[in-house]
């Protein structure tokens, strides 16, 4: 009874805390400007099934794809086991699904065990790639101490959870062989039966081990759940809605700014009366709250894998720009804005902005708008949109484009071409062979 009460208290506290922190992220995302991403629901579901559920963009890197697939499937399937653990914990039962499911239960537990082993192997491989092989993708200016530790913590926690799960099963299996009390036979335990021989033989010790691992496993999972809102690992939740709300247009199509359309129309036709769109908005993006909620959702979805940065032509050739940094800066800044809101209220201004305090001009102007980063992202994050919006702010609000680009603007405006040629000479190519 006491164990059940403790379990219910821990479970309740974990769920409460997680809901609170996830709610904060939701609030932060909704600080962004509105954008409609609800059109073509059929295509959106299809894209989500393919890209998020089906992991279609992961396959470009086969080793990472296979390892990630193990962890991904393991995470989803082993959650069925967590459901049983929850019920057992609340009602004080033991392996509550084993009687009603019969032989199927043994099969399920067997598949969980195989998956747990694969997850374990994948996590070890991932740790080696990060810390021993030191893949270039996992370093870079933005990969400071915390992002690197975050990745290692996630992998270590998963290794611990899987180890506890398998050890628990091994002790259970051994108790089943002893026909001890309620430890009824529940399948063949294809992985943990190999661990069983190295465990102590006494029933008391085995029960201690089984219970200890059971508690460690479930408290570990609940603690991990509460680690998510502070971690890049939040992608396991946001990847799905983030892909659902993807930009469905061709990548080359940039948004046309409606606020500019009104002004240009008024300029070209003095009789044009624009619709009143209320508060005149800032042109482009200076701080995170000028971004759309989708940009902000993408920032929280980013798991810092670095595929974007590793294919960025500017980054490859040693420029300061890193698309991953754009996303991480955006996330860190909106988190800061949210924290300020909680601490100091609505009217507080910390005199900081995404542009300049986080992202420098040099980064913005190094982009070739080639869309390689957008193409590479396994969950359809678009760093290019943020870069473009910040360029818009620099150009239209501050007139702070590099001088050579200002020259180009002048030529386009006056000569109808980005170079200093006369429009009257535009057909000269037809005459000189």
């Amino acid at each position, binding site marked *: 009874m006491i164990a059940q009460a403790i379990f219910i208290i821990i479970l309740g506290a974990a769920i409460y805390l997680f809901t609170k922190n996830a709610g904060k992220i939701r609030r932060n995302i909704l600080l962004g400007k509105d954008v409609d991403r609800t059109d073509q629901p059929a295509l959106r579901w299809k894209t989500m099934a393919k890209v998020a559920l089906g992991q279609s963009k992961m396959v*470009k890197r086969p080793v990472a794809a296979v390892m990630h697939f193990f962890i991904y499937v393991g995470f989803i399937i082993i959650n069925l086991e967590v459901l049983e653990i929850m019920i057992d914990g609340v009602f004080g039962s033991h392996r509550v699904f084993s009687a009603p499911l019969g032989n199927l239960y043994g099969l399920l537990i067997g598949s969980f065990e195989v998956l747990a082993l694969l997850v374990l192997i994948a996590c070890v491989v991932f740790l080696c790639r990060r810390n021993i092989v030191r893949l270039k993708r996992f370093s870079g200016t933005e990969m400071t101490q915390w992002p690197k530790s975050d990745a290692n913590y996630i992998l270590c926690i998963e290794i611990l959870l899987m180890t506890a799960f398998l050890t628990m099963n091994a002790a259970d299996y051994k108790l089943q062989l002893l026909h001890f009390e309620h430890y009824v036979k529940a399948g063949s335990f294809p992985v943990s039966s190999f661990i069983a021989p190295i465990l102590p033989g006494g029933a008391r010790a085995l029960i201690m081990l089984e219970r200890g691992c059971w508690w460690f496993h479930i408290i570990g999972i609940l603690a991990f759940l509460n680690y998510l809102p502070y971690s890049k690992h939040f992608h396991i939740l946001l990847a799905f809605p983030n892909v659902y709300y993807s930009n469905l247009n*061709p*990548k*080359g*199509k*940039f948004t*046309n*700014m409606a606020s*500019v*359309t009104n*002004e*240009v*129309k008024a*300029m*070209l036709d003095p009789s044009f009366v624009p619709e009143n769109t209320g508060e005149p908005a800032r042109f*482009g993006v200076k701080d995170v709250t000028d971004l759309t909620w989708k940009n902000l959702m993408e920032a929280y979805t980013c798991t810092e894998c670095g595929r974007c940065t590793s*294919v960025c*032509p*500017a980054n*490859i*050739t*040693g*420029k*300061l720009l890193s698309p991953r940094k754009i996303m991480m800066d955006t996330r860190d800044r909106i988190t800061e804005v949210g924290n300020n809101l909680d601490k100091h209220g609505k009217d507080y201004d910390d005199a900081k902005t995404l542009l300049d305090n986080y992202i420098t001009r*040099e980064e913005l*102007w*190094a982009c*070739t*708008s*080639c*869309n*390689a980063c957008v*193409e590479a992202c396994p969950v359809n994050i678009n760093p290019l949109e943020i870069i*473009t919006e910040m360029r*818009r*702010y*620099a*150009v*239209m609000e501050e007139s702070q*484009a590099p001088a*050579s*680009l200002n020259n*180009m*603007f002048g030529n*386009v405006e006056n000569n*109808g*071409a*980005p*170079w200093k*040629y006369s*429009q*009257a*000479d*535009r*057909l*000269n*190519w*037809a005459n*000189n*062979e």
Partner: protein
Amino acid sequence: MDLKIPTMAELAAEGKEPEILFWVGCAGSFDERAQKITRDICKILQHVGISYAVLGTEESCTGDPAKRAGNEFLFQMMAMNNIAVLDGYNIKKIVTGCPHCFNTIKNEYPGLGGNYEVIHHSQLIQQLIDEGKLKAEGGESFKGKKITFHDPCYLGRGNSVYEAPRAALEILDAELVEMKRCRSSGLCCGAGGGQMFKEPEAGRKDINIERIEDVIESKAQVVASACPFCMTMLTDGVKHQNKEQEIKVLDIAEITVRANGL
């Protein structure tokens, strides 16, 4: 081939409307190398007998470089003026010689009221090959030559056009080789996003040099492209590596014209 370049104004004066407008673009109008490609596209159009015209001095920048560099005002100003000109001539179908013009008119003009069927010259060439109107005979032989294709970002990733330019090369009986970074993983030439008009930021090397290393690695004798900006960047890259003798940079339109002896 004796080239006759009809302009929209001339045709309109005769009360005629061409089947398709050839949108030349700024590079195609003014850059010496790109001018040659422009004439080659006209040769192809004339060769297959499509009725076409150009805007000539009535054409202006689409606004693409301004838009990518953040100057949305200038872009929309250019776009609305161009739409007025295009609609004034009742234009329905456009072929462009530049992926940037193609992308802008196709994707970004509709939101400002300009609705046209827009194709890139690689798609036109593919269509003509498919219809049997364009072959690779009567001209220079590319047989056995190693040719690789550099995907322009705004044609490939930007609009998912990967096969059309390759169709123009597959007909040649040449050996088509791919670079390690190709199609959706293709590496940018370094000119997009306004970079064509400014010095690059400080770094280890220029992007076109990085790209030319891919070309060299592929052992291709010809690197084909379909964008005037890529053309400039790749040509500069080849020069920088002193490979002008070994590697030729050609637009798919030039290759088509050569293969057909136009």
